[in-house]
Protein backbone atom coordinates (compact mmCIF):
# COMPACT_ATOMS: atom_id res chain seq x y z
CA UNK A 1 0.00 0.00 0.00
CA UNK A 2 1.31 3.42 -0.95
CA UNK A 3 0.96 6.28 1.53
CA UNK A 4 0.37 9.63 -0.20
CA UNK A 5 2.78 12.46 0.59
CA UNK A 6 1.24 15.89 0.13
CA UNK A 7 3.11 19.15 -0.42
CA UNK A 8 2.17 22.34 1.34
CA UNK A 9 4.69 24.87 0.08
CA UNK A 10 8.02 23.49 1.24
CA UNK A 11 6.41 21.28 3.87
CA UNK A 12 5.59 17.65 3.25
CA UNK A 13 2.50 16.18 4.91
CA UNK A 14 1.86 12.52 5.27
CA UNK A 15 -0.73 10.75 7.34
CA UNK A 16 -0.56 7.04 8.01
CA UNK A 17 -4.15 5.93 8.38
CA UNK A 18 -3.82 2.17 8.22
CA UNK A 19 -1.58 -0.53 9.60
CA UNK A 20 1.61 -0.70 7.59
CA UNK A 21 3.66 -3.74 6.77
CA UNK A 22 7.43 -3.40 7.26
CA UNK A 23 7.86 -3.00 3.50
CA UNK A 24 5.14 -0.31 3.31
CA UNK A 25 6.92 1.62 6.05
CA UNK A 26 10.28 1.18 4.34
CA UNK A 27 8.82 2.43 1.08
CA UNK A 28 7.40 5.52 2.76
CA UNK A 29 10.82 6.23 4.26
CA UNK A 30 12.50 5.87 0.86
CA UNK A 31 9.99 8.21 -0.82
CA UNK A 32 10.41 10.83 1.90
CA UNK A 33 14.20 10.74 1.57
CA UNK A 34 13.92 10.98 -2.20
CA UNK A 35 11.84 14.16 -1.89
CA UNK A 36 14.41 15.74 0.44
CA UNK A 37 17.15 14.69 -1.94
CA UNK A 38 15.33 16.54 -4.74
CA UNK A 39 15.18 19.55 -2.40
CA UNK A 40 11.43 20.03 -2.69
CA UNK A 41 10.94 20.52 1.05
CA UNK A 42 12.39 21.89 4.27
CA UNK A 43 10.44 19.63 6.58
CA UNK A 44 8.00 16.77 7.04
CA UNK A 45 4.97 16.41 9.27
CA UNK A 46 4.40 12.72 9.81
CA UNK A 47 0.98 11.96 11.25
CA UNK A 48 0.58 8.54 12.85
CA UNK A 49 -2.93 8.99 14.26
CA UNK A 50 -4.02 5.92 12.29
CA UNK A 51 -1.48 3.62 13.93
CA UNK A 52 -2.80 1.67 16.90
CA UNK A 53 0.39 -0.37 17.17
CA UNK A 54 3.94 0.93 16.97
CA UNK A 55 6.31 -1.94 17.65
CA UNK A 56 10.08 -1.83 17.96
CA UNK A 57 10.55 -2.08 14.20
CA UNK A 58 8.25 0.85 13.46
CA UNK A 59 9.74 2.88 16.32
CA UNK A 60 13.22 2.36 14.93
CA UNK A 61 12.09 3.23 11.42
CA UNK A 62 10.47 6.48 12.60
CA UNK A 63 13.59 7.42 14.58
CA UNK A 64 15.88 6.63 11.69
CA UNK A 65 13.75 8.50 9.19
CA UNK A 66 13.91 11.62 11.36
CA UNK A 67 17.68 11.31 11.69
CA UNK A 68 18.17 10.73 7.98
CA UNK A 69 15.99 13.70 7.04
CA UNK A 70 17.94 15.87 9.47
CA UNK A 71 21.23 14.74 7.96
CA UNK A 72 19.85 15.87 4.61
CA UNK A 73 19.06 19.30 5.98
CA UNK A 74 15.37 18.82 6.76
CA UNK A 75 13.25 18.62 9.90
CA UNK A 76 10.56 16.16 11.02
CA UNK A 77 7.63 16.59 13.39
CA UNK A 78 5.65 13.52 14.41
CA UNK A 79 1.96 14.04 15.19
CA UNK A 80 -1.13 12.24 16.39
CA UNK A 81 0.41 9.51 18.51
CA UNK A 82 -2.25 7.53 20.38
CA UNK A 83 -1.94 7.58 24.17
CA UNK A 84 -1.83 3.76 24.19
CA UNK A 85 0.99 3.79 21.68
CA UNK A 86 2.95 6.31 23.76
CA UNK A 87 2.42 4.20 26.88
CA UNK A 88 3.49 1.00 25.14
CA UNK A 89 6.59 2.60 23.66
CA UNK A 90 7.72 3.89 27.04
CA UNK A 91 7.10 0.49 28.64
CA UNK A 92 9.14 -1.11 25.89
CA UNK A 93 11.95 1.33 26.52
CA UNK A 94 11.54 2.53 22.95
CA UNK A 95 10.89 6.17 23.45
CA UNK A 96 10.98 8.08 20.21
CA UNK A 97 13.41 10.54 21.68
CA UNK A 98 14.96 11.92 18.54
CA UNK A 99 11.79 13.38 17.06
CA UNK A 100 9.91 16.60 17.65
CA UNK A 101 6.25 15.92 18.30
CA UNK A 102 2.93 17.74 18.28
CA UNK A 103 -0.59 16.76 19.22
CA UNK A 104 -2.15 16.94 15.75
CA UNK A 105 -1.47 17.81 12.12
CA UNK A 106 -2.25 21.51 12.54
CA UNK A 107 -0.01 21.88 15.59
CA UNK A 108 2.59 19.84 13.75
CA UNK A 109 2.71 22.21 10.81
CA UNK A 110 3.02 25.17 13.21
CA UNK A 111 5.79 23.42 15.15
CA UNK A 112 7.65 22.54 11.97
CA UNK A 113 7.49 26.15 10.75
CA UNK A 114 8.94 27.29 14.09
CA UNK A 115 11.76 24.76 13.92
CA UNK A 116 12.60 25.64 10.32
CA UNK A 117 12.42 29.36 11.07
CA UNK A 118 14.70 29.03 14.11
CA UNK A 119 17.16 27.00 12.09
CA UNK A 120 17.21 29.44 9.17
CA UNK A 121 17.75 32.30 11.60
CA UNK A 122 20.73 30.52 13.12
CA UNK A 123 22.15 29.83 9.67
CA UNK A 124 21.73 33.48 8.60
CA UNK A 125 23.34 34.73 11.79
CA UNK A 126 26.23 32.35 11.24
CA UNK A 127 26.77 33.78 7.76
CA UNK A 128 26.88 37.41 8.83
CA UNK A 129 30.20 36.90 10.58
CA UNK A 130 32.81 36.47 7.86
Amino acid at each position, binding site marked *: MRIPILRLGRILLTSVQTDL*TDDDAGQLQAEVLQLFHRDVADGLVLDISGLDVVDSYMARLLNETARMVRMMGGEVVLTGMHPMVALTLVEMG*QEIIGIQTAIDLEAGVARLREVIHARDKRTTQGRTTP
Partner: protein
Amino acid sequence: MHHAAQRHEPKTSTVSDRVDAIVTIKEQTDILHARSAGREVARQLGFGTVDQTRLATAISEMARNALNYGKGGTCTIVTEKGQDGRLTIRVLVEDHGPGIADVALALKPGFSSGGGLGQGLPAVRRLMDHLEIDSQPGRTTVVATMSRRP
Protein backbone atom coordinates in the same frame (compact mmCIF):
# COMPACT_ATOMS: atom_id res chain seq x y z
CA MET B 1 18.04 -24.45 25.28
CA HIS B 2 15.28 -23.47 27.62
CA HIS B 3 14.92 -20.19 29.32
CA ALA B 4 12.12 -18.64 31.28
CA ALA B 5 11.90 -14.94 31.87
CA GLN B 6 9.40 -14.72 34.63
CA ARG B 7 7.62 -11.88 36.30
CA HIS B 8 4.68 -13.47 38.02
CA GLU B 9 3.16 -16.64 36.71
CA PRO B 10 -0.22 -17.47 38.13
CA LYS B 11 -0.15 -21.07 39.29
CA THR B 12 -3.90 -21.54 39.35
CA SER B 13 -5.32 -24.57 37.64
CA THR B 14 -7.40 -23.72 34.64
CA VAL B 15 -10.98 -24.78 34.28
CA SER B 16 -11.30 -24.06 30.60
CA ASP B 17 -9.04 -23.53 27.60
CA ARG B 18 -10.15 -22.20 24.27
CA VAL B 19 -8.22 -21.70 21.04
CA ASP B 20 -9.31 -18.31 19.76
CA ALA B 21 -7.13 -17.81 16.73
CA ILE B 22 -4.52 -19.56 14.64
CA VAL B 23 -2.67 -17.36 12.17
CA THR B 24 -0.10 -18.74 9.75
CA ILE B 25 2.87 -16.40 9.46
CA LYS B 26 4.10 -16.54 5.88
CA GLU B 27 4.30 -12.91 4.82
CA GLN B 28 4.36 -9.45 6.36
CA THR B 29 0.59 -8.93 6.23
CA ASP B 30 0.24 -12.00 8.47
CA ILE B 31 1.99 -10.03 11.23
CA LEU B 32 -0.84 -7.50 10.98
CA HIS B 33 -3.46 -10.29 10.96
CA ALA B 34 -1.94 -11.93 14.03
CA ARG B 35 -1.81 -8.76 16.07
CA SER B 36 -5.33 -7.66 15.18
CA ALA B 37 -6.59 -11.16 16.06
CA GLY B 38 -4.87 -10.80 19.44
CA ARG B 39 -6.38 -7.39 20.04
CA GLU B 40 -9.84 -8.70 19.20
CA VAL B 41 -9.48 -11.64 21.60
CA ALA B 42 -8.39 -9.27 24.38
CA ARG B 43 -11.24 -6.88 23.63
CA GLN B 44 -13.85 -9.63 23.70
CA LEU B 45 -12.51 -10.87 27.03
CA GLY B 46 -12.94 -7.38 28.44
CA PHE B 47 -9.25 -6.45 28.65
CA GLY B 48 -8.77 -2.68 28.58
CA THR B 49 -7.32 -0.77 25.66
CA VAL B 50 -3.90 -0.53 27.32
CA ASP B 51 -3.69 -4.32 27.57
CA GLN B 52 -5.10 -4.71 24.06
CA THR B 53 -2.29 -2.49 22.76
CA ARG B 54 0.40 -4.26 24.83
CA LEU B 55 -0.78 -7.61 23.54
CA ALA B 56 -1.02 -6.52 19.90
CA THR B 57 2.47 -4.99 20.10
CA ALA B 58 3.96 -8.12 21.69
CA ILE B 59 2.35 -10.35 19.06
CA SER B 60 3.76 -8.06 16.37
CA GLU B 61 7.28 -8.60 17.73
CA MET B 62 6.86 -12.36 18.10
CA ALA B 63 5.34 -12.82 14.65
CA ARG B 64 8.05 -10.71 13.03
CA ASN B 65 10.75 -12.81 14.66
CA ALA B 66 9.11 -15.96 13.30
CA LEU B 67 8.96 -14.44 9.83
CA ASN B 68 12.40 -12.84 9.68
CA TYR B 69 14.45 -15.38 11.60
CA GLY B 70 12.34 -18.52 11.48
CA LYS B 71 11.23 -18.31 7.83
CA GLY B 72 7.62 -18.19 8.93
CA GLY B 73 5.58 -20.07 11.47
CA THR B 74 2.31 -20.19 13.32
CA CYS B 75 0.76 -17.90 15.90
CA THR B 76 -1.82 -19.51 18.17
CA ILE B 77 -3.87 -17.51 20.65
CA VAL B 78 -5.48 -19.44 23.49
CA THR B 79 -7.57 -18.12 26.33
CA GLU B 80 -7.76 -19.80 29.69
CA LYS B 81 -10.13 -19.21 32.54
CA GLY B 82 -8.80 -20.06 35.97
CA GLN B 83 -10.88 -21.38 38.86
CA ASP B 84 -10.54 -18.02 40.54
CA GLY B 85 -11.97 -16.33 37.47
CA ARG B 86 -8.62 -15.07 36.27
CA LEU B 87 -8.45 -14.77 32.50
CA THR B 88 -5.21 -15.54 30.70
CA ILE B 89 -4.38 -14.96 27.07
CA ARG B 90 -1.61 -17.24 25.91
CA VAL B 91 0.19 -16.48 22.66
CA LEU B 92 2.28 -19.25 21.19
CA VAL B 93 4.47 -18.53 18.18
CA GLU B 94 6.27 -21.45 16.66
CA ASP B 95 8.74 -21.57 13.80
CA HIS B 96 11.00 -24.14 12.22
CA GLY B 97 13.98 -21.92 11.55
CA PRO B 98 17.56 -22.32 12.74
CA GLY B 99 16.68 -21.46 16.33
CA ILE B 100 18.05 -18.92 18.77
CA ALA B 101 21.65 -19.80 19.60
CA ASP B 102 21.71 -17.99 22.94
CA VAL B 103 18.28 -17.23 24.38
CA ALA B 104 19.64 -15.27 27.36
CA LEU B 105 21.56 -13.05 24.95
CA ALA B 106 18.48 -12.60 22.71
CA LEU B 107 16.62 -11.25 25.73
CA LYS B 108 19.20 -8.55 26.28
CA PRO B 109 18.15 -5.23 24.75
CA GLY B 110 20.35 -4.28 21.84
CA PHE B 111 21.48 -7.77 20.89
CA SER B 112 20.51 -8.90 17.44
CA SER B 113 21.62 -11.79 15.30
CA GLY B 114 19.82 -10.77 12.16
CA GLY B 115 20.12 -7.10 11.40
CA GLY B 116 17.28 -6.02 13.68
CA LEU B 117 17.79 -3.72 16.57
CA GLY B 118 17.43 -6.55 19.07
CA GLN B 119 14.50 -4.93 20.85
CA GLY B 120 11.88 -7.51 19.88
CA LEU B 121 12.09 -10.10 22.65
CA PRO B 122 12.99 -7.63 25.41
CA ALA B 123 9.87 -5.68 24.41
CA VAL B 124 7.71 -8.80 24.65
CA ARG B 125 9.09 -9.49 28.10
CA ARG B 126 8.22 -6.00 29.25
CA LEU B 127 4.73 -5.92 27.74
CA MET B 128 3.56 -9.35 28.79
CA ASP B 129 3.36 -10.99 32.23
CA HIS B 130 5.36 -14.05 31.35
CA LEU B 131 7.63 -15.12 28.52
CA GLU B 132 9.05 -18.52 27.85
CA ILE B 133 11.34 -19.48 25.00
CA ASP B 134 12.25 -22.97 23.94
CA SER B 135 14.62 -23.00 21.03
CA GLN B 136 16.61 -25.57 19.14
CA PRO B 137 17.57 -25.88 15.48
CA GLY B 138 14.38 -26.64 13.55
CA ARG B 139 11.94 -25.69 16.24
CA THR B 140 11.53 -22.54 18.27
CA THR B 141 8.50 -21.84 20.44
CA VAL B 142 7.92 -18.55 22.14
CA VAL B 143 5.04 -18.43 24.62
CA ALA B 144 3.89 -15.22 26.23
CA THR B 145 0.93 -14.77 28.55
CA MET B 146 -1.10 -11.93 29.94
CA SER B 147 -3.52 -12.43 32.82
CA ARG B 148 -6.23 -10.23 34.28
CA ARG B 149 -8.98 -10.58 36.78
CA PRO B 150 -12.36 -9.81 35.22
